């Protein structure tokens, strides 16, 4: 028996017989099995053609009532159908939950997200809580179409730029090889030419000069080749650099647009997303920083108040020359006349006490511990 047959047999009957039409590979070695990710029931190509060519139909496997479409049938990639299914689920979930690390506030939030995504995948794979998980996923997909699409575009772009870079590197390598070959050729040619030159000079010159001429010839050759090599290197490097920076620029551009497209802040499903800063409309500069100068409720300040007590100051040129300003005194006395007139201590202080009454009943230590526990927050697992 040929070893191939043996191995086929070892795989068992299941793999060899179409569960729908029962035709076997033994009779039909070209037989191809297809699956549909709706239910992962395997059937042969001819069955698929037969049953689904005229439009969607129920899966012919007994007990499975899934409606299948022909265009979704495909070859199985993995031997284990469970792996196949998990990979499909994973791909689908990843396409929806395609947040990127730089969208998260912290490493921790990103890790949480990854864990959450794995949990969703596991739920779907093992069939736990499927309805809810699917619903969450759909809801998320609907709410975040823009950012999903932006991130998909970004992924595609990265993939293509990765590819581009790879082809570029291959191209560079090819160029380098070519150049090396070329150079080798050139050197050979010049060596030959130089040798001829030396020979002709030796032929023409005196025998005493022979050694010197031969040495000169060698030197010139070396110089030429190294000069050429460095020149070529320079040009090549420059070109490569130019191409590289082009690619980078394209990448950067892509990134910025994607950032703008990424709209949602914290979505219901995913936590810890970086808030996207929408540039606030520029506020006019306020030199007073939000306070209103000279606004008063009780009095309107005058530049002069009659007071015999203050009259000597008004006459005192020395005090005036020092800059002493009675208006500052008026302003202070009138402010102090009314500052706090409407503060009712019995009311405000007892409110203050009441607001803190929680703290009173708690011993200091417990209060501190509670505070400490409260403040440890997301980094509390250190």
């Amino acid at each position, binding site marked *: 028996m040929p070893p191939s047959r043996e191995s086929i047999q070892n795989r068992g009957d299941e793999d060899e017989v179409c569960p729908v039409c029962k035709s076997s590979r033994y009779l039909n070695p070209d037989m191809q099995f297809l699956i549909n990710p709706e239910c992962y029931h395997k059937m042969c190509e001819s069955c698929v053609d037969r049953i689904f060519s005229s439009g969607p139909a129920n899966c012919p496997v007994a007990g499975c009532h899934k409606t299948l479409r022909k265009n979704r049938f495909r070859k199985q990639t993995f031997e284990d159908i469970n792996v196949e299914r998990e990979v499909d689920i994973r791909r689908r979930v990843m396409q929806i939950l395609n947040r990127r690390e730089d969208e998260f506030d912290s490493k921790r939030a990103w890790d949480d997200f990854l864990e959450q995504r794995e949990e969703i995948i596991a739920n779907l794979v093992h069939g736990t809580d499927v309805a809810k998980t699917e619903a969450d996923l759909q809801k998320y997909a609907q709410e975040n179409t823009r950012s999903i699409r932006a991130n998909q575009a970004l992924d595609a772009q990265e993939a293509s730029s990765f590819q581009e870079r790879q082809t570029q590197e291959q191209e560079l390598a090819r160029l380098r090889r070519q150049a090396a070959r070329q150079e080798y050729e050139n050197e050979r040619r010049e060596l030959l030419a130089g040798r001829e030159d030396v020979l002709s000079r030796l032929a023409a010159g005196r025998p005493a000069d022979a050694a010197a001429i031969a040495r000169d010839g060698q030197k010139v050759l070396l110089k030429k080749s190294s000069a050429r090599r460095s020149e070529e290197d320079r040009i090549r490097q420059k070109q490569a650099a130019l191409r590289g920076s082009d690619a980078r620029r394209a990448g950067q551009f892509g990134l910025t647009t994607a950032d703008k497209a990424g709209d949602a802040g914290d979505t219901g499903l995913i936590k810890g997303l970086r808030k996207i800063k929408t540039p606030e409309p520029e506020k006019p500069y306020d030199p007073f920083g939000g306070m209103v100068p000279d606004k008063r409720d009780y009095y309107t300040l*005058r530049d002069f*108040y009659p007071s015999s007590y203050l009259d000597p100051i008004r006459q005192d040129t020395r005090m005036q020359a020092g800059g002493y300003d009675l208006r500052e005194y008026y302003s202070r*006395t009138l402010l*102090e*006349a009314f500052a*706090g007139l409407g*503060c009712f*201590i019995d009311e405000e*202080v007892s409110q203050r006490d009441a607001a803190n009454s929680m703290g009173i009943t708690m011993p200091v230590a417990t209060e501190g511990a509670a505070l400490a526990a409260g403040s440890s927050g997301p980094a509390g697992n250190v």
Partner: protein
Amino acid sequence: MIEDDFYRSSSQFRFWSYTETSLRSLRATTNAIASERVQSALRKSRGAQRSATSSAAGTPAPNHTGSDADSKAGGEETEIECLTPEEEHQLVRYFCEQIIELGEMYKPPLPTIVRATAIQYLRRFYLTNSPMTYHPKSIMLCALFLATKTDNYYLSLRQFTEVIPGDTTSEDIIRPEYLVMQSLRFTFDIRHPFRGLEGAIMELQAIAQGIGQPAPHFPTQTPEDLKRKLHALHPSPTASSTTDRLARAHHNTREILKSAAQMTDAYFLYTPSQIWLSAFMLADRPLAEFYLDTKLGGPPADPQQQGNPLSELRTKLLRTLTGCSNLLQAYTPLASDPDQKKNLRRIRKKLFHCQNPEKADLAGQKRIPAAAAAAVAAAADPATSESEMERLAKKRKLEGKQPRDIFGGELVTQRTKE
């Protein structure tokens, strides 16, 4: 009101404002802690003393350490009678009055504001400390000296000490400074009502002269209107003219602020603006009400009418001002009240017996170089060492037989001679 926010940011409002209830309970707590400590400290020192005497007599004492067993054995002794919160309060008030007197002795006399600040320091100090622990006579001097520094009326400690009667040294005065500052919780700014009164008087004078400005909420007021209304006020029985009336009201209000406002709990319970206005009401009620009405409008035409924030504020304010006025009015100086004086003498006698011996030397360790202080603080933390207490207790017993001239006595006798 905008002006109120200036006061709300002050340390006086944030740290030193109380309701009557919270003030009372704070004093009660302070008194309770101090009494407990006095009892236990005196028990210990008595025990120590007895064991000392008995060992001197040659009979071995059953308990030679000041332990719990010893204090139980001493059960037949009468409990020491401690001061009540009310008595402590009376005592502190007496020393507040002493600050006024003392300020007069300087040449020139210490400014009113410095003395008022010192008084408030003393009052704040005794909210969280008891006179049984720290005797007011020394705290008072330190508070006054601290006030000269914080209120920019600087005297050197030497100059300051020269005026103090008795044998008080500079070191005695400055020693508790750190303790005082700590008890003041390092808030030195006192918001007094004096300057506010000056502002109001200046504005009233402007109104009297027909140059008053309309209040922001009553832009239709005219200087003429204001002037007319001021002059049409129900005439004061004592003043001949409006100017005279203003001057009298000014003077009398100031007197109340210098005395009653300092000697009562006014600063803890009311804001400086409420205090001067309450005092002003006591001095000349129609004038004070006129002034308030220019700011908040008169009484509402229809008392049932709701929703005008200014008239609601006015109603509330009048209630508070009445409360404050009553507090100020109830004050009578000790010197003019023989009953109070007698009572005070009793309290001081009582204090003499319930002064905490551990702290009698008061913050003794407070003004020593930092390095040594750390060591002392560490050593003295649970209680001063036994021998130290014994020594102090003996000293007190000795002094008990020959009462030393306690500071302040001199002033009292002086006054009685007069």
